[in-house]
């Protein structure tokens, strides 16, 4: 016996909470993307725990695709952030919002 399964799920949900907080409350586009990565990692942890709980390897197969999709969206997201930075010189989302409201991006 390692741990009760709901301890694994609670750990995963606390990590998800931190990732959600990072996405919602940071003033930097890169940190918003970092929060998304934390959330994906927390979900992967829950899947691996579930795979061990029900002794099926399916949960681990899902995590493989979670990793691939995370890599994909990070690369596209960071390319977008670099593009935004080159256009407006800032990665502050409030600056981008002001630029959108003025109609200049």
């Amino acid at each position, binding site marked *: 016996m390692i741990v009760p399964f*709901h301890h694994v799920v609670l750990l995963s949900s606390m990590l998800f909470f931190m990732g959600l907080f990072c996405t919602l409350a940071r*003033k930097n586009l890169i940190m918003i993307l970092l929060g998304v990565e934390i959330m994906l990692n927390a979900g992967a942890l829950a899947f*691996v*725990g579930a795979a061990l709980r029900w002794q099926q390897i399916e949960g681990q197969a899902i995590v493989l695709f979670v990793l691939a999709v995370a890599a994909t969206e990070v*690369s596209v997201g960071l390319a977008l952030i670099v593009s935004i930075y080159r256009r407006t010189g800032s990665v502050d989302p409030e600056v981008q919002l002001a630029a959108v409201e003025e109609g200049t991006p």
Partner: protein
Amino acid sequence: MTLLTILFYGIAILTLASTAMAVTRRNMIHAALYLVLSFFCTALLFYLLGAPFLAAMEIIIYAGAIMVLFLFIIMMIRIDKASAQVFRAGQLVPAIIISMLWLVALTLLVLEQPNAAGSLVAAQASPGEFGFYVFRNHWLSIEIASMLLLVALIAALLLGLGSRGDSPRKPS
């Protein structure tokens, strides 16, 4: 209270602490490095929960490729002045409230499930068996994932080329 149990709780506390530090740092490089530590701890948790191949993949892909990409971009982007606040003023309290509500709801959901209280029995999925399983049952998903990676490659390339061509200002 076996060794695996003590290891699990210790690594879990280290993961939570390093993720909390990553979320609250003002310096983005510090945040990225704390997150690399968090991913290493998650990889250890994967190994503990019986997924050695996924532990290796987490370190190689997540900590080794994704976070290095983050660090490249952070070093490329120059922040002229450190912003006065780490968190957005109007968003801090609603973010905490919403996230706490979500955490409480999920905790209640988990605790009232009878299935969830089962103890985990230690087992290991050998990489060979894992590979056979994935390639036998999910070969189509693997093909789709590789197409997705190709699309992301083309998208990142086009975004990089396009922004360099259009923008008149240089980040200097």
